[in-house]
């Protein structure tokens, strides 16, 4: 169990290398390797999830090995760089999410017929990158995996995307590339500020890894965050750097334009990966670094977070109403939902933090499900344009039904995962920003409006005569739909399966930020 995270990260890469070794024409074997390469780490992730000790708030399943040391990196301190993994109550659910989404994406991508070998290699590479990002317990490790998702995402959009894929991929690259650079500056700045403060405070406070104050280890920084007091001015600057990176990374207004383009131009499998897991990285960074390690910075910018969140919530929802393409609609809807998380983080309440993780997981599952079903109908109708669809419930009852479940989940129907997420986010939000949250709650009405209206135009009403004859979901397509719907219902009915894991860590974070 000790090395489980290392295995989770490495297995997709090994599978990817196996894929490369296969002859390009043996599609069946390549698909099988791709599926196995995603399924095994997903099973390991599940095992880790079940074995997760809810009472412990430190990083669990730690794996650390020294990579290199740079002598005299700062104030005569040596910088030790580790290759390390470890998860806590925030990252464990996200690792699990990557497991679910990546496995189901592999199944969905059976439909890809063009350049199958490269497709599966890059999907596996992206899977490795996302596992690594969420499981990393060192800044260096984290950053490496973040950059590997950039390369994989860029090529996946660029090769298998739609007509304007080159444009979309370049936009994806520029925004996320810039975000990662800003993020790196913030991460190194964080480590240095901690090092100098810890060194200064080491006379009065016991620092666990003294005299190695300069550290890139996340668990060490989390421990120190409680022990030493970083000056408010430094925290503010660093928090601002992180905020800027997260705004770009997570496609918040006004840095959002790349996400709709990316989703509109990517193929379904890539969309599931990006919408289902990749788009959770930004807020994870927020929770992991900015919120946990810079509490004064958070307090200083809390209102800003709430306002920025509100802008994204309303703007995303309003544009989603006007969207003519299903994929753009989902993209804007996800921007709107993520804005809610930002607002809740700004509230600095424990329930808000917990709701944030719930929303990340729930929105990951629902977005993946929406992209899957929308993609499945587009495979048959050949279009994503809402106005060209209609009456699908007669010809494609199963796909339409599942699509409706996903839409209702996103709207926040009680009994599905979206409800409990939005509920806790709003409880947190109202406690701190009643007016802003009241405005934000408009989004629930707007979401109901744009999703259900789009559903109505797609599945109900008179069938569009121009559409070809269609066959409903085949056996393979049932697998992702059944699993995702089951998980969405499970989280909605028994939120404890997720809440128990998140609770301890959320409590610890809330204690740090005084919520």
């Amino acid at each position: 169990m000790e090395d489980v995270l290392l295995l989770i990260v490495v297995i997709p890469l090994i599978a990817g290398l196996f894929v490369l070794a296969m002859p390009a024409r043996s599609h069946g074997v390549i698909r099988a390797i791709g599926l196995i390469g995603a399924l095994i780490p997903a099973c390991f992730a599940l095992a880790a999830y079940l074995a997760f000790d809810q009472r412990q708030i430190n990083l669990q399943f730690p794996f650390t090995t020294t990579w290199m040391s740079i002598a005299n990196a700062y104030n005569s301190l040596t910088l030790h760089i580790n290759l390390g993994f470890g998860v806590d109550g925030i990252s464990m659910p996200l690792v699990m999410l990557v497991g679910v989404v990546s496995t189901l994406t592999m199944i969905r991508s059976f439909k890809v017929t063009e350049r199958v070998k490269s497709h599966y290699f890059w999907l596996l590479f992206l899977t490795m990158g996302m596992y690594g990002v969420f499981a990393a317990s060192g800044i260096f490790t984290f950053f490496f995996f973040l950059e590997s998702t950039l390369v994989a995402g860029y090529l996946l959009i660029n090769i298998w995307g739609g007509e304007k894929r080159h444009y979309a991929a370049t936009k994806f690259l520029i925004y996320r590339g810039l975000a990662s650079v800003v993020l790196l500056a913030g991460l190194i700045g964080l480590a240095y500020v901690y090092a100098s403060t810890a060194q200064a405070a080491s006379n009065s406070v016991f620092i666990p890894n003294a005299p190695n104050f300069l550290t890139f280890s996340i668990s060490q920084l989390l421990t120190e965050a409680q022990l030493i007091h970083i000056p408010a001015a430094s925290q503010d600057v660093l928090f601002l750097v992180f905020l800027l990176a997260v705004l770009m990374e997570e496609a918040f207004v006004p840095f959002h334009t790349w996400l709709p383009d990316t989703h509109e131009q990517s193929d379904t499998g890539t969309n599931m990966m990006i919408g289902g897991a990749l788009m959770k990285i930004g807020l994870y960074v927020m929770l992991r670094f900015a919120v946990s390690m810079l509490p004064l910075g958070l307090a200083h910018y809390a209102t800003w977070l709430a306002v920025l969140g509100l802008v994204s919530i309303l703007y995303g929802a309003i544009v989603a109403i006007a969207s003519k393409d299903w994929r753009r609609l989902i993209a804007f809807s996800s921007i709107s939902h993520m804005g809610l998380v930002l607002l809740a983080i700004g509230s600095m309440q424990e329930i808000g933090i917990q709701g944030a993780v719930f929303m990340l997981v729930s929105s990951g599952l629902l977005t993946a499900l929406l992209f899957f079903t929308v993609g499945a109908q587009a495979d048959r109708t050949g279009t994503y344009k809402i106005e060209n669809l209609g009456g699908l419930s007669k010809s494609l009852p199963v796909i339409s039904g599942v699509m409706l479940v996903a839409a209702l989940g996103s709207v926040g129907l009680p009994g599905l995962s979206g409800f409990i997420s939005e509920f806790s986010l709003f409880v947190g939000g109202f406690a701190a920003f009643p007016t802003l949250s009241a405005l934000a709650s408009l989004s629930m009405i707007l979401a109901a409006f744009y999703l259900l209206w789009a559903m109505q135009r797609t599945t109900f009403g008179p069938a569009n005569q121009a559409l070809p004859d269609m066959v409903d979901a085949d056996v393979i397509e049932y697998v992702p739909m059944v699993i995702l719907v089951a998980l969405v219902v499970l989280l909605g009915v028994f939120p404890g399966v997720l809440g128990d894991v998140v609770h301890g860590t959320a409590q610890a974070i809330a204690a740090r930020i005084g919520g």
Partner: protein
Amino acid sequence: MGTTMHLLSFSDIWRSMGPEVIVIGGAFLIMLIELLLPQNKRHIVPWLAVIDVIIATFLIISRFGGGILVYSSADYVVDGFSSLFKILILLSTFFVILLAIVEQRKHKLPYEYSYLLLFASGGAMIITSGIDLVLLYVGLELLSIATYILVALNRKDGRSAEGGLKYLIVGSIASATILYGLSFLYGVAGSTNLGQIAVALQNAWTSDSAILFVSFGLILAGIAVKISVVPFHLWTPDVFEGAPTPVTAYLAVISKAAVLAFMLRILIFAFGQKYQDWWLLIAWLSVITMVVGNFGALAQGNVKRLLAYSSIGQVGYLIMPFAAIGQSQNVSNMWQALSSMMFYLFAYALMTIGAFAVLSKVAQTRGSEQVDAFAGLYKRNPWLAVMMTIFLLSLAGLPLTGGFFGKFMIFLVAFNAGQYWLGVVLFATSAVAFYYYFGILKAMFVLEPVGDEEPIRAGGLLQVIVGLCALGTLYLGLIPGPFLTVLNNVHWFG
């Protein structure tokens, strides 16, 4: 430093200048052999140069860490600084000659290149060890004159001749400017020895500060031309484009490294006292070089010009650690700056030569140096495409490559010295660089081959060069530890 005059014995020369003697003496010998060999046997000539370089490299490595030696009343010094630079120069020369051998098979370059490259590298090695103005200048001219000829080596190609002439004119003016600046230095200090100049200048800064600043300005401007620091960079794209690809790689790596060594010696030894007055100038030069180099590359469709602009940007990174130590008085910052610069130089050498090697193969078979020539390279030759990816990712500074770690080290220097803004500019311009490096990546992996789908067959030698460069790039990124240890323990200056 040596205080008593003594006559140089042959054994002194061998112990101090052994590698240089091997390289330059070997060059003369090879020149003679080429003349005597019949035309159809001359293809072994470059291989003799390769052997020569290998012997010299092993000699340096075997003496590495053997303490600091100063010769001929402190005119010539063998210290860690010079040894590391010489290893870098010879390693790069080794790859460049091999690349020239590959290029030769297609382009029928005259065999002169084999000894011209050795002469140039000999000059470069002298620069790194000389602590006397005359010696430094002789080394610089040996390097420059040999490279003027090398650029125009492809006589029948108009662009090569044009590039050669351009380089000759600009380079000569730069050399003259440097010499002019050095002459003031001699005039004020009354000596050509850097150590004595440093002593003499302690008083001269109060009495002759104006002339010394003129001297500083002239020397810096000349150096800036040679290593293509903005705004003295305009010759670079044209010359890089015109020169045969191996020579371009030579200019981008060895020429720059040697002049960088020249700059460090002169600026630290002679002008080090007034560091507080000029570090900001270097910092700003570094910033505009990074910005102009990286933004200039955005507009390029020709990969060779693109790499030329990117190499301008890389020079900005290379001179940054030197500027970044800024106001810090701590000598350990200086060692850190030198280490990071040296680390990045090695990474830069490997990834640049590797990228030029792939480019030369693609340009040969596709008959074009445009980005389009790389379209569908993954289908034509997956191996070359993957290797090129490593070089490009390293140049762009993505993790697990030497390029990333080098930049990271430079960033740490800036951070340690409190010059955060320099670090920010470093990463901001790297983000710009993503755009054009990924443009080539896209061409290789995403676009369909233009025209036919005929595979590109890379010869064994090219694969060896590219493979070794990629291995080195990854090694520096994955396991930088051993090299960092060497850099930490080295005695930089004698």
